[in-house]
């Protein structure tokens, strides 16, 4: 049975006692004026209900106090002869006794259920935290240790076995070190950005940007391989946009990096930028395998990775892109064609200026 937590019962104990007893007295008072109509036996049910409701909101001890108070009140004000603790009818004695027991049992049971619920919730939260921590730990150790292993191994070979190496092998080892270094740099940047997103420590610093320039800078930084191409499709007469070049640049980098990682050799990734209704709209479209509709919602989750035999990663890139876009008051979305290709769209409000157009004329 699920009991709604009406209050986060963080009330101080004293207030809980006051509220419990006060509400019972209020209920009794209401009944006192209507008892001629409803009869004193129904009053017992109303008081029991009050105690049950209190049990859902407050700790066990104040509720027990309320139960006892209600029993006393019922006896004194309602069971004939009224205004005495004396009970004449055997039936009323039995009812009073039953009332007392039911009120107590009710209070205790409710408290136990709530307690169990609280414990189960705490346990679940703890398990989730542990699971997240383990995922983080595994993915981090893989992403950081693999390039470190490349560097250490390559350096060992160049230092200790140089005479056995062919010139090709030597060049390849240097390239390994280079790539591993870049990979480490990227992972560390991802981690730093993730913690910036998580702690909300992002300050947006606006400046005017020409997208052609921004995109070409990003493209130069990307590790494009196997004849993959990134093409930029700017809108005609593109204005300058006022934005944070570092944040949007990082978003673009992560989206493009993701696109080329999941695209086959020789494929094309297209970036387009448009100015629509006061928003800057960036689209990154690939012709990779696409993203199954069932997985679309998950790609922005931290550490989520689509399984792809040839690709590894920490699963942070898209989650960071989302966090940075949101810090820039924008939105990120994904449209996928299961037949092939995914399109990520980033949209954020941005001031524009056509000064560059004037300049060119």
């Amino acid at each position, binding site marked *: 049975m699920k009991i709604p937590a009406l209050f986060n019962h963080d009330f101080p104990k004293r207030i809980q006692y006051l509220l419990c007893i006060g509400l019972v007295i209020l209920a009794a008072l209401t009944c006192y004026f209507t008892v001629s109509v409803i009869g004193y036996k129904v009053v017992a049910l109303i008081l029991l209900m009050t105690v049950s409701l209190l049990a859902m909101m407050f700790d066990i001890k104040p509720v027990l106090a309320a139960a006892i108070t209600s029993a006393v009140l019922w006896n004194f004000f309602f069971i004939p002869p009224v205004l005495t603790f004396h009970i004449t009818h055997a039936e009323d004695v039995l009812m009073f006794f039953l009332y007392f027991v039911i009120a107590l049992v009710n209070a205790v049971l409710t408290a136990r259920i709530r307690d169990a619920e609280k414990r189960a919730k705490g346990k679940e939260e703890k398990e989730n935290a542990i699971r997240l921590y383990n995922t983080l730990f595994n993915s981090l150790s893989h992403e950081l240790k693999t390039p470190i*292993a490349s560097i250490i191994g390559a350096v060992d070979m160049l230092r200790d076995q140089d005479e056995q*190496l062919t010139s090709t092998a030597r060049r390849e080892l240097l390239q*390994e070190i280079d*790539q591993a270094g870049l990979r480490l740099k990227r992972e560390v940047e991802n981690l730093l950005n993730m913690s910036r997103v998580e702690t909300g420590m992002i300050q947006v610093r606006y400046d005017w940007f020409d997208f052609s320039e921004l995109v070409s800078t990003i493209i130069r930084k990307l590790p494009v391989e196997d004849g993959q191409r990134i093409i930029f499709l700017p809108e005609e007469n593109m204005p300058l946009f006022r934005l944070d070049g570092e944040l949007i640049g990082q978003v673009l980098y992560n989206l493009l990096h993701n696109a080329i990682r999941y695209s086959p050799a020789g494929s094309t990734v297209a970036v387009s930028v448009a100015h629509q209704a006061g928003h800057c709209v960036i689209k990154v479209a690939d012709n990779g395998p696409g993203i199954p509709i069932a997985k679309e919602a998950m790609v922005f989750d931290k550490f989520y990775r689509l399984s792809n*035999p*040839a690709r590894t990663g920490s699963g942070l890139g898209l989650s960071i892109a989302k966090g940075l876009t949101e810090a820039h008051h924008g939105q990120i979305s994904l449209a996928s064609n299961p037949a092939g290709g995914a399109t990520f769209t980033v949209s954020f409000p941005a001031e524009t200026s056509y000064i560059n157009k004037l300049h060119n004329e």
Partner: protein
Amino acid sequence: MNRPEILVIDDEPPMQKLLEIILESNAYTYRKAANGKEGIIMAANHPPDLILLDIGLPDKSGHELLSELRMWYNKSIIILSVQDSEADIVKALDNGATDYLAKPFRTAELLARIRSALRKNSAAETTLPIEKGELFIDLGRRIVRRAGQPVKLTATEYKLLALLVKNEGTVMTHHYILKEVWGSGNQNDTQYLRVFIGALRKKIEADPNQPRHIITESGIGYRFI
């Protein structure tokens, strides 16, 4: 002698490239598989002399793959993995891995482990005497000498030493050693093992407190070098 063939099952292209250069430069024949399925097929079609297996494969866990390989492949398998917790290592060794090396590793260490593992492939046939510094062990004639002096060992100590020497260079779990020396049913009595290892070290190590032959792999087992 033919160049020993080593199959590397690892999904990381940079790691494959590095291992290719290390192995080819050290007179091994290198073959690669990028995932578990490919690894199984390659190992079955043309069994290599040794398999270097990554635990974190994309299509199935390396632990699973190890168990599958062990159903029919009885040469050495060395695990290479970024996961270096004692639990992971013990699990892999108990599943039949010959040895376990955590990434990042030193190249010299990898090559030493490969040599030990390859030696182990043919260890069953040879009981040649070995000499390690001032230590001389001839399992064929049951002779152990330290600095020229015969070492007297009890039957159990001898059994333990023989097991260590036969698996020279590769790590053995507590569990495995207990089973081999004391028989099944004693796998969890690590205190026996510690006592006998201590006794053995007193007899064969120059300084039992800084052992140079019987190396403790903390939380995992022992290695004889």
